[in-house]
């Protein structure tokens, strides 16, 4: 495993322009995230959690400062290279699942493979293995509207993991789930660091955050605290 941290942010600042006014979403955040760690991100809404996730996930780019993902400066890459990096390195998990409603679970999972390099002959084997591991293989031909919340989030997790990313970014993944299914999904997620994958999880729930190796707290776009729990 490489010694460079999977993520490093250097004085990362993100400013949005709304109605002619500058809004600072993230302000001078510098941090490193080690490979294979489980990092929880906490903070009130509007504190910059999602902005940080988007910057780390190469979906958004800092106004100033730098984001290094697997050692490469994301702002320095062109759109194609950024997209490649995102496809290869990052899996996203959202509170609202973000499955494409017109597609079946299998098609949703394979959509992540469409933009990768794996040969199409491997697609169904790969996605089926993952769906089986997550316990929803029998729902593969269903559309998202026919799934329970827990099933939908597992399907989304299968899609996030199908390219074998080193980094999983989960933005309140249990926020739309009842506590029991939330716990099931959380258990699946917490297995990831043991496989050498890095999990960054945004949560409001202190009980969830306490299971992480490290808790970052954001407030008004600034990194307020950085606690290592283990």
């Amino acid at each position, binding site marked *: 495993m490489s010694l460079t941290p999977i993520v490093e942010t250097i004085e990362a600042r993100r400013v949005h322009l709304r109605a002619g006014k500058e809004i600072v979403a993230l302000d001078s955040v510098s941090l490193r995230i080690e490979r294979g760690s489980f990092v929880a991100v906490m903070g009130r809404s509007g504190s910059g959690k999602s902005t940080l996730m*988007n910057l780390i*996930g190469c*979906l*958004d780019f800092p106004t100033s400062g730098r984001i290094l993902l697997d050692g490469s400066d994301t702002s320095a890459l062109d*759109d*194609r290279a*950024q*997209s*490649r990096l*995102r*496809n*290869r390195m990052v899996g*996203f998990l*959202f509170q*609202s699942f*973000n*499955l*494409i409603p*017109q*597609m079946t679970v299998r098609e949703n999972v394979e*959509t*992540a493979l*469409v*933009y*990768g390099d794996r040969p*199409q002959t491997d697609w169904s084997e790969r996605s089926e293995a993952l769906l089986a591991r997550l316990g929803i293989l029998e729902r593969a031909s269903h559309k998202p509207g026919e799934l329970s919340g827990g099933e939908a989030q597992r399907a989304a997790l299968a*899609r996030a993991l199908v*390219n074998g990313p080193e980094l999983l970014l989960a933005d309140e993944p249990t926020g739309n789930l009842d506590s029991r299914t939330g716990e099931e999904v959380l258990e699946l997620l917490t297995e990831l660091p043991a496989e050498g994958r890095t999990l960054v999880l945004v949560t409001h729930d202190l009980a969830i955050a306490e299971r992480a190796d490290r808790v970052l707290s954001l407030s008004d776009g600034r990194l307020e605290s950085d606690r290592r729990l283990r």
Partner: protein
Amino acid sequence: MTTKSLIHLAVRGLALHKLRSTLSALGIVFGVAAVVAMLSVGEGARREILAEVGRLGINRVTVRAGSVSRTTEVEAGRLQSPGLSLADAEAITEVCRNVESLAPIRMASEQIANGERRAEATIVATTPSFARTEELALASGRFVADADVSDAKRVMVLGHELSALLFPYDEPVGEGVRIGEERYTVVGALEPRELSRQGGRMTGRNLNRVAFVPLSSMPRERGLLDEIAVRIDDAGAVRDSARLIESVVRRRHRGAVDFELVVPQELLAGYERARFQFNVVVGAVAALSLLVGGIGIMNIMLANVTERVREIGIRRSLGASRDDITRQFLAEALMLTTVGGVAGVALGFGLALGISSYAGWPTAVSLRAIAAALALAAATGIGFGLYPAMQAARSSPVEALRRE
């Protein structure tokens, strides 16, 4: 992203809104159908004209005696024009190097009789070279020979219909017929000759109702002729030769316009000019209808893009680049117009058949027309799909994902 997954994506994308996709493709269907149908009519007419000119002879120039109007007739008298004569024929042969063969012609309408059987015929008195200038094909016997002309022999070659009318049961060669009191011996009979479909100036005479006799058997004062048929050896030299022939004859006629020149190739050129105008009109109509179709496509694609902003965001988060998104939506537009184009070609083909059978116009669907129509449809897809596709690629994935 592979082409296969791109096509798959496009089909899936369009299948989301089947009715909407179908309706927007209809604009292209009708546009392409109109183009194909109109080009088919044009192509049909072109082929017919070409066939017509082919029958008349692309290498032919005919000098016809006769004044175009009363004024030119009076003028000819005042100028003391000698009229179209054998001397003109000799002058043409002498001056024009490109003459391959030349036949002087005298004509008369007579009744030919074989016993009780009678038939109205055009009697053409000419020389053996007429067979070459007109490319006559003999069914039996021979054509008028040089010796027939020099000895003013009473021999006759019958056109196909005349042989059938006068000799329904027998072989005509060797038999005798009469024109008035004069007896002729039939020495040859012609193969049937395909007739021109259309009337008017371009139509050749009906060679099936013609009886050929030696030029000398229809003598006229001062060697006057009705026509001189000239065959030019090189199709490329026909128009120059025609001009030369005209000036030779006019000079010999002291400037009088008591003859006219029939040049099938010039008629063809005139037709080609008209066809060009037709094509410009067709092109304008095609461009307009495809413009309308294209605007429909753009409209639908913009609606699709707006509606699917979230999907675009999801795809971007999964590793789709801006180019991937552009290609996806461009592929959808291209798919719409290509499928519309293919359906349009089929419909246009049907329309052409319908026009053919209803109006009786000849139509021909050329491969070039089909290729042009499809290329236009595809170009419309790319042209009008590009903006919505770029719009889709430009949207911010973060904004898109935030949308509920």
